[in-house]
């Protein structure tokens, strides 16, 4: 008998796979292709004391505002068209939030070191700036004749990485379409377990979409679970399928200054489950019709 080889789980099983205190990397870039359905599942859960690693968009503001984050490790936090992330800003300025502020490239370097099982990777980046004032970085001297002093960017090993893509199959083959896949590949390689939500989950990618194999951003041995989550990037963009939802992002930003704080926003918008969330976002057709952002 052929053993069962199936990585499909649902959002409840996803949450049950995580633990308090984990270090979780979130793929995507600012308000672009973020695994928001997975983030919303964390927001609805009792998980806490998480270390979140990201090129931050709304997931950073939401998770910080909801009190889920012990430490935020980031290359930036921004919603692009809304440059300052409103909830991240509010938490940092009023409550305080432990952070490790990195250059964007240093973050990539930390993930690559973790992926390769190295303690660090050397770089010039960060030297001469206040990144080294606040991060606990050490220097390393080249053992060769040049003797250059470099910053030793420590590995950022992840307990879990969360990605959202267009397509996945039961075995963990995934395809991310669109013009840019950011550093999702390295989040996956740096993680003990990678959870990928997808607009569509098929039985066999080779049978369903054999012509798009170049969109397979990371090999399936680095994908441990797949979760079907249609419109799972909303309110962030998922080109070419749908753009970001600027009205929803503006409402999210306005809520940071409104009465009731985060609990009111979470109750009204994040809601009890994804079906309610999508209905609140205007429904599947409305999200599918969101125009792609122009840069």
């Amino acid at each position, binding site marked *: 008998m052929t053993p069962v080889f199936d990585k499909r789980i649902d959002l409840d099983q996803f949450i049950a796979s995580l633990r308090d205190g984990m270090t979780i990397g979130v793929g995507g870039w600012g308000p672009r292709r973020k695994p928001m359905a997975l983030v919303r599942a964390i927001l609805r859960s009792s998980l806490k004391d998480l270390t979140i690693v990201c090129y931050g968009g709304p997931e950073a503001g939401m998770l910080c505002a909801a009190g889920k984050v012990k430490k935020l490790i980031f290359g930036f936090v*921004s919603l692009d068209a809304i440059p*300052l992330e409103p909830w991240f800003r509010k938490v940092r*300025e009023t409550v*305080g939030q432990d952070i490790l502020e*990195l250059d964007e*490239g240093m973050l990539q370097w930390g993930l690559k070191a973790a992926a390769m099982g190295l303690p660090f990777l050397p770089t010039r980046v*960060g030297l*001469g700036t206040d990144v080294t004032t606040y991060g606990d970085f050490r220097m390393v001297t080249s053992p060769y004749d040049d003797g250059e002093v470099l910053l030793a960017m420590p590995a950022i090993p992840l307990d879990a990485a969360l990605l959202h893509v267009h397509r996945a199959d039961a075995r963990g083959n995934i395809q991310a379409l669109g013009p*840019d896949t950011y550093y999702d590949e390295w989040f996956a390689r740096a993680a003990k377990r990678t959870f990928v939500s997808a607009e569509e989950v098929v039985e066999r990618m080779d049978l369903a979409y054999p012509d798009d194999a170049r969109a397979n951003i990371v090999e399936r041995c680095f994908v441990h679970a797949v979760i079907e989550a249609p419109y799972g990037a909303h309110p962030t963009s998922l080109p070419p399928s749908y753009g970001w939802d600027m009205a929803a992002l503006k409402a999210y930003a306005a809520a940071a200054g409104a009465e009731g704080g985060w609990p009111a926003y979470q109750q009204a918008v994040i809601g009890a489950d994804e079906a309610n969330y999508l209905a609140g976002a205007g429904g599947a057709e409305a999200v599918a019709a969101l125009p792609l952002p*122009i840069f």
Partner: protein
Amino acid sequence: MATLAELCILACAEAFRGSGEVIATGIGPVPRLGAGLAKSTHSPELMMTDGEAFLVEDPVPIGPRGYDDRKAAGYLPFSRFFDAAVWTGRRHAIVTPTQIDRFGQTNLSYLGGSHDKPKVQMLGVRGFPGNSIYHINSMFIPAHSQRVFVPGEVDMVSSVGYNPERRVKGGNFSGVDLRRIITNLCVMDFGGTNNAIRIISLHPGVTVGMVQEATGFALEVADDLTETAIPDAAQLAIIARLDPHNIRASVIKGNPPARAEGDGQ
């Protein structure tokens, strides 16, 4: 008649001159139009993206357009950006930081308070530490004031400048290459004593005293101080083509002309 924003676009284009076959990145409408103007005129070797992931040979007009209007000649997504453009030094970026100090160090991370609890949380250092130690950088400041050009040091040094106190012994800072600062008042470079910031051209009607008054540290003045060039009709036509929605009109408060009416020249 050219506007002050259009004069600044031309000054940004001039900043890109001689950068070589590198990615010209202009963050914000004026620097981006400057990159497009440079590429469309004196520096066809410059490379530009569509603002997202594709390299284009015809600079993409800014503002609303069809998503697929751009014609891709190459590919440079964020996932390749550090390896291809930043860490090889193949880039000249013109950026608009929130603070600049006399060493050319900039800040876009946070303002006031402390790093633990800032008064204003901004973006974080983004790519500035890497950009500044590896490739050419210039700056565009639409409202020249002491709030931007601060005394002492910026609140959070996000990019490397020419501060000897911050040189890590044994570190390689040979890639630090700050070129121009274009503001609504003047153009400056780093050609002063020990890379001090100095005024190299004044926009029409502006005096050295006005610039100094709006700057939180002492400026030097180039011996061959000139008046900043005003774009000609051909340059203005290119700018208009690259900015069909006239977004440039919203960059400098009041969208003043490059030369005030009644100014004798």
